[in-house]
């Protein structure tokens, strides 16, 4: 699965998510990725989210919408994504990750899998990571 979230100079947010599914999945099976509220969600009043991970788990908790709701309730982008993934793990024992941008340009990313490749750009700075806690800073 791949995904992106962004906020532009007018304060508009957007998200996109795309996937090929799982090897040898049942024909017709659909995970979270194409479904609004699970694989992605955005609202100019709050921010944008794109999710990845175990599709059925993410579907059950509407992960993207949950993160947006937590942010609307006062969590930062980072707090929101961490809290929602912890909740998903507790409720349905699912793992995954998500990237977030708030309508103010605040960034968030978290995962409870072994790895997640991510990268972010703001104010000309590139940040990236792969392993838990890892954050590289620099140019391409």
């Amino acid at each position, binding site marked *: *699965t791949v995904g992106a979230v962004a906020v532009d100079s007018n304060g508009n947010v957007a998200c996109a998510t795309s996937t090929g599914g799982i090897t040898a999945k049942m024909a017709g099976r659909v995970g979270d990725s194409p479904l609004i509220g699970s694989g992605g969600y955005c609202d100019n009043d709050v921010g944008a989210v794109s999710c990845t991970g175990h599709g059925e788990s993410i579907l059950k908790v509407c992960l993207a919408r949950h993160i947006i709701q937590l942010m609307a309730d006062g969590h930062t982008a980072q707090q929101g994504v961490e809290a929602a993934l912890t909740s998903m793990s507790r409720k349905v024992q699912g793992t995954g990750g998500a990237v977030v941008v708030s309508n103010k340009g605040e960034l968030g990313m978290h995962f409870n899998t072994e790895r997640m490749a991510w990268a972010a*750009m703001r104010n000309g700075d590139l940040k990236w990571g792969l392993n838990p806690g890892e954050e590289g800073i620099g140019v391409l």
Partner: protein
Amino acid sequence: MLPAIVIHGGAWAIPDNLAEASVLAVKEAAQRGYEILQGGGSALDAVEAAVILLEDNPAFDAGTGAVLNEDGEVELDAMIMEGKSLAAGGVCCVKNIKNPVQLARLVMENTDHVLLSGQGANTFAKSQGIEEVPVEILVTEESKREWETYMQFRKTVKVLFRERQSDHD
């Protein structure tokens, strides 16, 4: 307002042989999207362009690099959404489309619907001038090997995959 973009390339047990390519690709996608934002482009254009770049990279299973289902076929899913009007579009179980996120955007912009599935999505793609590509374009040798291994040792591999968190989208 300072524009910003964040990219992911999937959360799972990324093997070492894909790690470097995955990180490089998400960096490139972030830069591509950021260039659009810096040029005054919209967040919608930025996320679409970034995801297209990743769909075209065989290190990921979206688009080129797709995995095979139990019937040995490709089924792709994608969505896109913008936060001003909550306009959204998605496609699922679409076959032989190189960039499903592009098709999702056409669903958002050119239909009254949010999600099209299967043959309906493919028929809509054709109506929008998006050509289907041969499955060989989308599926890598690695994807084929993984599918053959899975089908040959299905029960055993299923257990191993679960332990390795590889049963993720």
